[in-house]
């Protein structure tokens, strides 16, 4: 990933800054700049999510792309944030502990790196809430 491509999403990736449509009240993470319900009549503003959510589904990645190969096995999940939207994220927990319906909250973690000397990608992962 190019430096600028990573850099422009730092607030979103580090601090879970998504968006909200003030016309209909719907929350978006990953952020959207156009509300699919209100389209051009929707007004979009930034929104910081509180980072609490529930695991909707998950898997344990055993075979990954080169960037993630040295971190396998890892738990990948779809998490539904309490505000409504869903995102794809890693759950930092032992694979056997992952369960549908488990409560999780967000943490700041190293996600991947572009090779030995490239950008280190930090971002949001989740951990079990209890």
């Amino acid at each position: 990933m190019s430096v600028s491509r990573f850099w422009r999403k730092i607030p979103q990736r580090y601090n879970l800054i998504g968006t909200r449509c003030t016309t209909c009240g719907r929350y978006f993470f990953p952020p959207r700049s156009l509300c699919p319900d209100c389209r051009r009549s929707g007004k979009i503003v930034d929104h910081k999510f509180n980072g609490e959510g529930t695991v909707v589904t998950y898997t344990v990645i055993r075979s990954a792309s080169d960037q993630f190969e040295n971190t396998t096995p890892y738990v990948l999940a779809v998490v539904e944030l309490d505000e409504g939207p869903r995102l794809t994220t890693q759950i930092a927990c032992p694979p056997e502990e992952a369960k549908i319906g488990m409560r999780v909250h967000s943490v700041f973690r190293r996600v991947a790196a572009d090779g030995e000397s490239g950008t280190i990608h930090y971002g949001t992962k989740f951990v079990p809430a209890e």
Partner: protein
Amino acid sequence: MRDVAVIGVGCTEFGEHWGTSFRDLFVKAGALALEDAGVTGENLDALYVGNMSAGRFVEQEHIGALIADYAGLATNHVPSTRVEAACASGGLAFRQAVIAVASGMEDIVVAAGVEKMTDVGTGASVDMLASAADREWEGFAGATFPGLYAMIATDYMHRYPLTREQLAEVAVKNHENGAKNPIAQFRNRITVDTVLNSSLVADPLRLFDCSPITDGAAAVVVVPLERAREFTDSPVRVLASAQASDTIALHDRRDISTLDASVAAGKRAFAQAGLAHRDIDMLEVHDCFTIAEICAIEDLGFCKKGEAGRLTAEGATALGGAIPVNTSGGLKACGHPVGATGIKQIYEIVSQLRGEATGRQVDAEIGMAHNVGGTGATVVVHILGA
């Protein structure tokens, strides 16, 4: 709108073609299709080529022109267009060819698909295939393509009574069919134990739940139905051509285990053709993973949600079953050169409807093809009739 017919088909063997280049694969499939159709290059009005990622697999873009050139069509300046919708690129190329002919703009058109995947390593391939999903918000987090379908499987098995063994039966059945298909990448039979003892890729999916990395190309020739008899005694009619979109990311879907784009495209196809499920004699569906075939059968409406695993284990989708599914061996056993798969599905259905599927022939007059891009962000459905 004019009715459209397929008058010729061609397909390379699917597999690891170390000695054959991207362009050579395409030329071979194209030549087979033109020979089958009894047309020559000078007759062609246009080419539509499905290809997912030549730019990353072989560092070549501008595929339309490259293919026109190496097919010997550059000097007559035949228009050639690349079509891309990830793993649905082939189905979409066929649909573009059908639209071009139906509209009256073009008469004799080749729809093709090609992918050369083995020139990069497995890690790089996994990374490229993940770009069929949402790169920024799925891929960034470490989602692999098998991982996304694994999350569909986890959700599905949590909600419906699908057993791990029933899921394995999809791969067993598709290898059984692939064993009878001379172009298939894997022509070996496997058992449920083969699947259950293979290594985990992304829980609960194992290696034998996954379609392979494949090189291959396929091509078909379409013309207005009213001209089809000039070329062949056995034209195959295009009874429906439907397409639907959904969210690029799995996490944004209404329902993780239902591909709503499959539901929408399926309904549109049935409405266009004026047909019901009982009229369909065979299906080629997009089994990039075993769970995908289960979802496809259900989402297209051939049974209720939660039933396809049991029906598969009972043999309903086998060659002699009530509705044979993936007689070619599917993506699992025939192989999955991503851009070519959608055209190979048309190739298989045409072969079956013409009675030329030696060794795996089913009694069929009408077949349906179902081609998925990503985890269901694009779905293309075609119905063909003898």
